């Protein structure tokens, strides 16, 4: 393992860009919770800088702090000086992983199994998905719960078990052809990223994404058995693995032949747009990665850019509110486009959600690593959803989608909001409804 001090070898001006004005503090969910500087972006940057300056050792406490951070990037939106917190945060996590200050046997095993094994192998991930689906659809999961099988698990894992995402019956490759042509071609040719969790739990949303692209005259190219984009690895201090996955991702598309590469998951998109930086000193991929960054578009961003066609039929929903994925609004600065899409659907009233851009606590695997803080944020989100009082909430990231669904499920029928969906799904439903009843539901 390399022993270079990663924070020391980082371009120092990135650290220096923070002028410690404190404008990030009121937007940071962890600072607002504790009111302690170390739990704030400016505090964390000062710790990173102290490590880079050789004034502070890399300790377990430092590691804990870096993992207490949600990585929601709300600070990047608030920052007047344009600090690249995402880069700092990823480097700091890589630094603490490299220093091995937090290497309990169990933590090490689970990290290795998920980051190095499962999420590096698309076939294995999907195989696990198939098995999980069988387990869930045969009712075996309920039986196990009844038999109190999970009583054997540590309490923290036991609590998480019911939150396991419901695995789809069919994955994206079963639902989307490698190449699909629109009825009315507008000359656009785009690649579609199907993601990993999105593919397992929300393959229907990938289908919806392909449908809205087709309805707007885009030819859709969807490579088979796609890999994880590597955001999970980059956010968890495994930059080498992230680079490997980025190279694979770039290789799976013929970049020159495509106008855009479309992503529909906020968290992935934010990472996918920074391959240029991730691979900047890779002699073979640096140039390709730069070009890649330019072509990656969030689906909402792309639809608004090509002036998407407003649907003429309703989506069958009367009121909707919108929760912003952190990495879509703070990471990618895609803020108005999803709202424009929702507002374009006939018969659909859009209601603003209070604190719509405040993290829901999903934050990648934060709900697993920091269940307590995650739950506090979920409670806050659920309370805001109650205030918005719309029957449906739309969001555009699988993590947020699952987190909101779990939060609302635990409230039962007393909560005014009962359904979680995504803007593309509502748009796809509206387009399908234009075809009359026979067009509904089936593509």
């Amino acid at each position: 393992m390399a022993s270079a001090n990663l924070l020391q070898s980082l371009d120092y001006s990135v650290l220096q860009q923070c002028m410690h004005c404190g404008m990030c503090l009121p937007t940071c969910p962890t600072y607002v919770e504790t009111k302690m500087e170390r739990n704030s972006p400016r505090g964390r940057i000062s710790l990173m800088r102290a490590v880079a300056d050789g004034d502070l050792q890399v300790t377990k406490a430092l590691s804990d702090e870096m993992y207490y951070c949600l990585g929601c990037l709300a600070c990047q939106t608030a920052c007047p000086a344009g600090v690249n917190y995402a880069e700092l945060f990823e480097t700091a996590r890589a630094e603490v992983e490299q220093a091995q200050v937090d290497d309990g046997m169990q933590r090490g095993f689970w990290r290795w199994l998920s980051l190095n094994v499962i999420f590096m192998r698309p076939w294995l991930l999907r195989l696990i998905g198939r098995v999980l689906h069988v387990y869930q659809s045969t009712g075996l999961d309920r039986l196990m719960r009844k038999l109190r099988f999970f009583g054997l698990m540590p309490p923290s894992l036991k609590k998480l078990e019911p939150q396991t995402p419901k695995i789809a019956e069919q994955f994206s490759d079963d639902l989307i052809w490698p190449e699909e042509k629109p009825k009315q071609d507008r000359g656009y040719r785009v690649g579609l990223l199907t993601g990993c969790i999105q593919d397992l739990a929300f393959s229907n949303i990938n289908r919806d994404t392909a449908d809205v692209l087709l309805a707007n005259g885009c030819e859709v190219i969807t490579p088979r058995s796609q890999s994880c984009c590597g955001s999970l690895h980059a956010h968890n201090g495994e930059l080498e693995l992230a680079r490997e996955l980025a190279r694979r991702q770039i290789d799976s598309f013929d970049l020159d032949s495509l106008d855009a590469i479309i992503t529909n998951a906020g968290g992935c998109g934010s990472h996918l747009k920074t391959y240029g930086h991730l691979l900047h000193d890779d002699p073979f991929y640096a140039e390709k990665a730069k070009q890649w960054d330019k072509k990656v578009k969030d689906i909402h961003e792309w639809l608004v850019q090509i002036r998407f066609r407003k649907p003429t039929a309703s989506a069958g929903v009367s009121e909707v509110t919108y929760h912003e994925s952190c990495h879509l609004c703070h990471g990618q600065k895609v803020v108005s486009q999803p709202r424009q899409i929702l507002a374009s659907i006939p018969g659909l009233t859009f209601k603003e959600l209070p604190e719509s851009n405040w993290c829901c606590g999903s934050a990648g695997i934060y709900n697993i690593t920091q269940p307590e803080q995650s739950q506090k944020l979920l409670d806050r989100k659920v309370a805001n959803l109650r205030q918005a009082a719309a029957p449906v909430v739309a969001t555009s990231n699988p993590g947020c989608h699952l987190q909101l669904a779990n939060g609302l499920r635990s409230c039962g029928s007393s909560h005014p909001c009962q359904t979680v969906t995504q803007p593309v799904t509502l748009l796809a439903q509206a387009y399908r409804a234009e075809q009359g009843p026979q067009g509904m539901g089936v593509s």
Partner: protein
Amino acid sequence: MNKIEARLIQSLKEILSPDRVLTSDEDLVPYSFDGTAALKQRPGAVVFPLTAEEVSECVQLARRNDVPVVTRGSGTGLSGGSVPLDGCLVICLVKMDKLVEVDEKNLTLRAQSGVITKEIDDACAKVGLFYPPDPGSMKISTIGGNVAENSGGLRGLKYGVTRDYVMGFEVVLPDGTLTFLGNKCVKDVAGYSMKDIFIGSEGTLGIITEVILKVLPRPKARKTMLALYDSMEDAAKTISAIIAAKIIPCTLEFLDRVTVQCVEDYAKIGLPTDVEALVLMETDGHPVVVEEEAAQMMALAKANGARDVRAAADEAEGAKLAAARRNAFSALARVRPTTILEDVTVPRSELAAMVAFIDAVAKKHKLQIGTFGHLGDGNLHPTFLTNERDHEEMHRIELALEEIVEETIRVGGTVTGEHGVGIAKKNFLKRQLGEGSYELMRSIKKALDPQGLLNPGKIFD
């Protein structure tokens, strides 16, 4: 680096609770600075009291053991007022954050020192009231910090600064005495106005734990205008003409050429980059009066040489016009790694000449300085864009600042309009005040804090 003795830490934990006493490196490094560039010092410990009594007990303990005390709110100060001293105890008041009362009958508001400034105005807005001081950091600055620093903001000309809204406060004195200065009375001449000595005292005389503020009825209407000029002289003439016409606008903000260019580079809002001054004007009050005053202000701007004048039809358009001013600091801050924000202030009549002087100094020392600020009250923000690691350039900045300060004092200005002296302006204070006034200030510090316990070495040695 000095540590605080373990025995003292133990006592602090007994006074407060263990989780409200911070001593580890990871906890202390983030308290080494405030919002001021290039100042850094790790404290000995940080504590979070919840009540004035706890503050008093901490102060007494520190006094008995001769440990200096630095009070801190959210740490957004721009002169080093809350930067710790080696081995000091930082008393951080952010957890004393209760908004105690909004008194609609007396038009007052009572809040603990750790309440965020914006939350105070938000609470006012709910009942049609208004707390005017709006320092740039109001989304996170604490009201206690605002009072201790006598913070300004964009509305100085019409509404004054924090001092004009402080009716009274509870304060812990250097010997631990807990007392209350002032009250809710508009008129009060019972003895010396002691509260006025503490306002803006930068934590050197006492620790303010709760404040009573004066609040106003909220203005019903507001109109935003933007004017572009080919010379700063013309912009200044416009302001004089507006004031001569008996109009007191609530906002009169300007950006100089360098700042406009940086804003356009960064935000791409379609500003012409060859203007010498961009002026943002706002008037507020009764809707009819606002309309009339706005029309007059626009006419005066044109008559005094404005190249282009625009008025916003509504709030949303107003926000668009204000975008240039709102983005000014962000735009400047992105140009180089280190941003040094100054706040020399001159009589309004000297403003145009001072901006020209700063420009000349920047050219002479080959520095990047963008100047923006408050046209109505003569408060300038020359902003140095640099890299603190470039020692040679930092030296040139020192020389430039020296010349700017010298000129400011020569024309009857002040070295700090709203940021405070702290550490950053300490060396200039005597020059501005003169021997008599400087010694008077020091004698007050000595009388109230003979031991030099509270924030020693700030303002003066």
